[in-house]
């Protein structure tokens, strides 16, 4: 961005923009019908999943096809807490979900970071299939194909609040978590740690030559990414009150990559925009052509066109500005 003396500083504009978007999202439940409220909440959740993966794709240069593992284990972790502990507790569900996702994160990170580039993509893909097979076939614990059903816990703050979630309060809760995660992830990418990740993206050999333990950095990056993906999984479980093996299937990972590429990698906001764009496209197509319409065919064409003609994604033009 060219610097002008009289104009507002970059930081001011950034935070004004952030507040405007937040205000719009906070006000959304007052203007939207229940259907669109839920729709928007889901976009935020998918956005968080995509954003977590952006830490790897956009900032470290590792394309992960395994984020469904973290997302799914977040879901099943939350389900475990809600089904086993009486009365169901919101915070315990989040804790369990994050523990599940982080455990899987450590496992996946340890093995998959031993290889690079396309091998990393392939390896993470295979890991998502491993977890899918385990969850799908271990019927006694995971409910197999049918998944697990549970009811949403109350929103509780000990001794202060104990309220039932409505569509609107759920939206605000998700918004708070997603916005908080965004700020955290932004902070991480701008920290010295994040700088090392970006240097790995630019030139891994040189980063190693300077003396950074590249693999350890990558492991931590994958784990962090998995942590936030697990958080998205917990939110999705809370929003929809079920956990199903379909979400561990690699298709979810593929969607995550699509959101990133459409929205623009390395921007953190882009993946949310990409998720919104994708979900709107899907909703629009199924309204025009009916539910049976294979919306993924046109979506696939859009995806390919964006890679070839707009490799930076929809928000690519703002990449430098957003990371400043």
């Amino acid at each position, binding site marked *: 961005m060219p610097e002008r003396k009289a104009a507002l500083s970059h930081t001011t504009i950034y935070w004004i923009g952030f507040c405007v978007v937040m205000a719009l999202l906070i006000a959304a439940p007052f203007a939207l019908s229940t259907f669109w409220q839920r729709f928007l909440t889901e976009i935020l959740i998918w956005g968080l999943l995509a954003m977590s993966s952006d830490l790897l794709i956009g900032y470290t*240069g590792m*394309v992960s096809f395994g984020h469904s593992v973290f997302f799914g284990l977040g879901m099943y972790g939350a389900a475990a807490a809600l089904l086993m502990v009486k009365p169901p507790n919101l915070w315990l569900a989040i804790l369990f979900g994050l523990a599940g996702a982080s455990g899987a994160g450590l496992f996946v990170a340890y*093995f*998959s970071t*031993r*290889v690079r*580039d*396309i*091998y990393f*993509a*392939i*390896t993470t*893909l*295979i890991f998502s*299939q*491993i977890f899918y*097979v*385990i969850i*799908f*076939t271990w019927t006694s614990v995971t409910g197999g194909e049918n998944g697990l059903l549970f009811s949403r816990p109350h929103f509780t703050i000990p001794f202060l609040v104990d309220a039932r979630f409505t569509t609107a309060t759920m939206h605000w809760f998700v918004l708070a978590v997603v916005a908080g995660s965004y700020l955290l992830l932004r902070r991480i990418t701008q920290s010295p740690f994040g700088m090392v990740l970006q240097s790995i993206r630019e030139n891994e050999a040189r980063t190693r030559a300077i003396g950074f333990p590249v693999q350890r950095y990558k492991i931590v990056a994958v784990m962090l990414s998995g942590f936030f993906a697990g958080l998205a999984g917990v939110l999705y479980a809370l929003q929809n009150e079920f956990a199903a093996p379909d979400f561990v299937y*690699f298709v979810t990972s*593929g969607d995550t*990559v699509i959101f990133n*590429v459409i929205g623009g990698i390395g921007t953190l906001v882009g993946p949310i925009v990409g998720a919104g764009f994708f979900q709107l496209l899907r909703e629009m197509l199924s309204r025009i052509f009916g539910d049976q319409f*294979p919306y*993924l*065919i046109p*979506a*696939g*064409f859009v*995806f*390919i066109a964006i*890679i*070839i003609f707009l*490799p930076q994604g929809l928000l690519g033009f703002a990449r430098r500005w957003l990371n400043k």
Partner: protein
Amino acid sequence: MDILSSIPWELLLIQTVNGIVTGMILALVASGLTLIFGIMDVVNFAHGELFMLGAYLGVIVVATTGNFWIGLVVAAGVVAILGAALQVSTLRPLIGRDPLNTILVTFGISLILQNYALWQFGTVVRKVSEPIGSYFTLFYLQYPWYRIFVAGLAAAIIGALYVFLKYSKFGVWIRATTQDRTMAQAMGIPVPLVYTGVFALGAGMAAASGVLFAPLGGVAPTMGLDWVLKAFIVVVVGGMGNLGGSIVAAILISLLEAYASIWVSPSQAVIVSFIALILTLLFKPTGLFGTTVTR
């Protein structure tokens, strides 16, 4: 003594034969994948979908003409042409960009093809009967000759590929391009044509394996993913871009899965090949047979 007699020897032998048969089909799929990777640096995510489309085309042609072999040739030819078209329209613009772009584009292609198949053919598994109806006795089983024949044919196709790469003019072009693209271009080799040709070749091989597999397991729109995953495991275990390595790894992994499915259900037997992959990553991340590119 007890342990020795508790091993089901007949079953082991039957599964060995089964494992080699599926291993040869897998080797055919994986050698197409590794050929495309070795020469173009493209990880073809859509390889499984080309396999699946080949199988569907085979089923359709067999249903109309009644001849399996026409189906095999037509499917391989049509999918090879489709592969060439895909390469020209989507991969050629990406030459010179980060190879990760190619995995994304081919992922998009696989999405389109898979959903097209789902839309066009539905989820019902289609069956096609084996073109060779005779059987031989293997212990208590009537084992179909067709399976043995498939393994032989797959081996023959791979052998033909090797001879083609080694002795034909186009094969020399391919090997030259693998070694040094710029130099090959400077020597007058039409490199873009070589790329398109190689992609078409790989696509045709995937389609042929799809048709050969169709009588064994039926045809469904989602079969592509299973195969591309297995093929990925094979190329990682065998060493990416290493043709010989992928063939050995394909047979090894299919045998492991075949043995495992004696004791657990086939859907769980896949885990064995996952474990093989993890162990490979742990002890020899470059693959069992190194990373040297087939020359």
